[in-house]
C-alpha cells in the first residue's frame, strides 16, 4: 500500500516543483539572465572598476605620469611588469633625473591582483575595462605601455 502512496506523493511533489518551473516558463523574459554576447558588443558596458588590463593614460601632448620609480615592478607578485629606465637631464631644473625608456607589461602573466595600481604613487597606470584579450599569438600579450616618443609630465614627482 505504501508503494502506491509513495508514487502518489512523488507525483504530487513533482508537480509542486513544476509549479515553480512552469511559472518561469511563462514569464521567462523577465528573469532571463542570458546575454547574447557577441551581438551585444555595442551596448555591453563593464563596471568602471572592472580589471581588464593595465594601461598608461597619455594626454594630448603625449605625456604620461610615470616617473620610473619601479614601485609597480616591486609590487607585482609574478613579474608581469618590467621597467627599462635611464637617466637624463631634466630640462626645467638641469638636474639628472630618472625616466622610463619602456614600461613593459606581460598581460599573459598578469593575475589581475591590482597591487601595481595600488602601489603607484603618481596614478600613472590604471585599469582599462576591455575584456576581449584573446590573441592568436602570445607575443601580442606583451605590451609596451608608454607610447613612442612620450615623456613624463612636468612637475610629477614620486
Amino acid at each position, binding site marked *: 500500500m505504501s508503494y502506491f502512496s509513495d508514487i502518489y506523493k512523488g507525483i504530487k511533489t513533482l508537480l509542486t*516543483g513544476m509549479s*515553480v518551473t512552469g511559472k518561469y516558463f511563462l514569464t521567462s523574459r523577465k528573469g532571463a539572465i542570458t546575454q547574447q554576447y557577441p551581438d551585444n558588443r555595442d551596448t555591453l558596458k563593464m*563596471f568602471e572598476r572592472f580589471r581588464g588590463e593595465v594601461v598608461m593614460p597619455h594626454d594630448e601632448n603625449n605625456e604620461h605620469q610615470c616617473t620610473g620609480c619601479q614601485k609597480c615592478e616591486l609590487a607585482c607578485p609574478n613579474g608581469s611588469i618590467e621597467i627599462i629606465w635611464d637617466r637624463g637631464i631634466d630640462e626645467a631644473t638641469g638636474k639628472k633625473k630618472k625616466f622610463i625608456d619602456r614600461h613593459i607589461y606581460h598581460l599573459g602573466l598578469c593575475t589581475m591582483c591590482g597591487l601595481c595600481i595600488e602601489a603607484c604613487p603618481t596614478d600613472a597606470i590604471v585599469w582599462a575595462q576591455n575584456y576581449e584579450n584573446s590573441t592568436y599569438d602570445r607575443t601580442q600579450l606583451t605590451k609596451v605601455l608608454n607610447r613612442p616618443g612620450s615623456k613624463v609630465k612636468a612637475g610629477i614627482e614620486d
Partner: protein
Amino acid sequence: METTLIKSNFKSEEYFINMGPQHPATHGVLRLLLTIDGEIIKKVEPDLGYIHRSIEKMCERDSYQQIVHLTDRMDYLSSHINNEAVCLTVENALQLDIPDRVKVIRTILGELTRIASHTLWWGVMGMDVGALTTYFYGFRDREMINDIFEETCGARLTMNYNIPGGLMFDIHPNFVQRTKDFIKHFKTKLPEYDTLLTGNVIFQKRMKGVGILSKEDAISFGASGPVGRGSGYSCDVRKHHPYSAYDKVTFNEALKTEGDTFARYQVRIQEMWESMAIIEQLIDNIPEGDVQVATNAVIKLPKGEFYQKVETARGELGVYIISTGTKNPYRVKFRSPGFSNLSLLNHIAVGGKIGDLVASMATLDLVIPDIDR
C-alpha cells in the same frame, strides 16, 4: 556437479574502477579509486595532486601583500574569506587597530560570498542527483552577487579586495543599494528552492539515511563547516571565536543531528537564511571612517608563529605563518576545510551504492583547488 558449476559462475569478486579525474560529479580533477563488489562500495581512495600548484611554497617567496592574491586561487568560491584570513593573521601579528568600517564591510562581503557559494553548491548538488533545473536557478541568484563584487572589487571570482591593513579601496556608492536589492530578491527565491527540491519526495528518498556521519566521527576526522554541523558538532568559528564584526551581530548556528546527506543539505539552506540576517543587521549602519590603516610598504612580521582561523563557506580555514622577522614568511600552512572533509568520504561511503557516493560527495561540497592547493 551442476550446482558447483553454477556457484562458480556467479562468484562475486571485488574489482577496481576509477571515478575521475574527469568525472563530472567530482567537480574538478579529483580521482577516486573505488573498490566495489557489484555496486556495493568496499573502499574509496581519493587520489590527489592533479591541480597542485604549491601555493604554500610560493608564499615563502612573496611578500605579505602578495600572499593574499594567491589565496583567491585556493577555495575560489569563498575567495573573499580566504583573503580575510591572511589579512587577519598579518594584522594580528602587527597588532594593528583595524577601523570598524573595514570590519563591517569585510563581514558583509564574507556573508555575500557564503551565499554565492551555497547557491552554486545547491545548483550543482541538484544536478548531481539528477535535477538539472536547480543548476540554472542557483546560478541566476549567484549572478547578482557576482555583479555586486564586480562593481565594488573589480573582479567576479578572484577579488583580492583585502590587503593587510584594510581594504584596497572604498566600497562603490551603489554597493549598499545593490546588496539590499539582492536580499529582497533572494528572500523570495530561497523559498522556491524548498518548493522545488527540498520538499520533493524523490529527492528526500535519495538523500535521507545516506552517508551517515556520527558526531564522534565528525570530530575525530576533523570535519568542519556544514559537514560537521550536519552531524550535530557545533563548530562555527564565527560563533565560538568571533573575528571581524561577528561579535556585533546575532545569528543562530545551523545545527542538525541526523548526520546524513539531507541534514547537511538543510544546514546549508539554513545558513543562507542566517547569512541574509547578518547582512541585514549590518548593511544599514556601516560606520564612517578610513578603509585602510597605513602600513609600511615592506611589511615585516615580528619573529614568531601566528595563527588565525575563519569560517569559509566550506568550514574552518586556518592560516599559520612562521616568521623569522624578514619580509617573507619562513613557512605558511593553510589548514583547508576541504582536505579534512574529503578524508571522511571513505568512512561514509563504504557499504553504500555508487549513486549514494555521488550524493555524499555533493554534500561534502568539495572544491579541489582547496584540497590540493
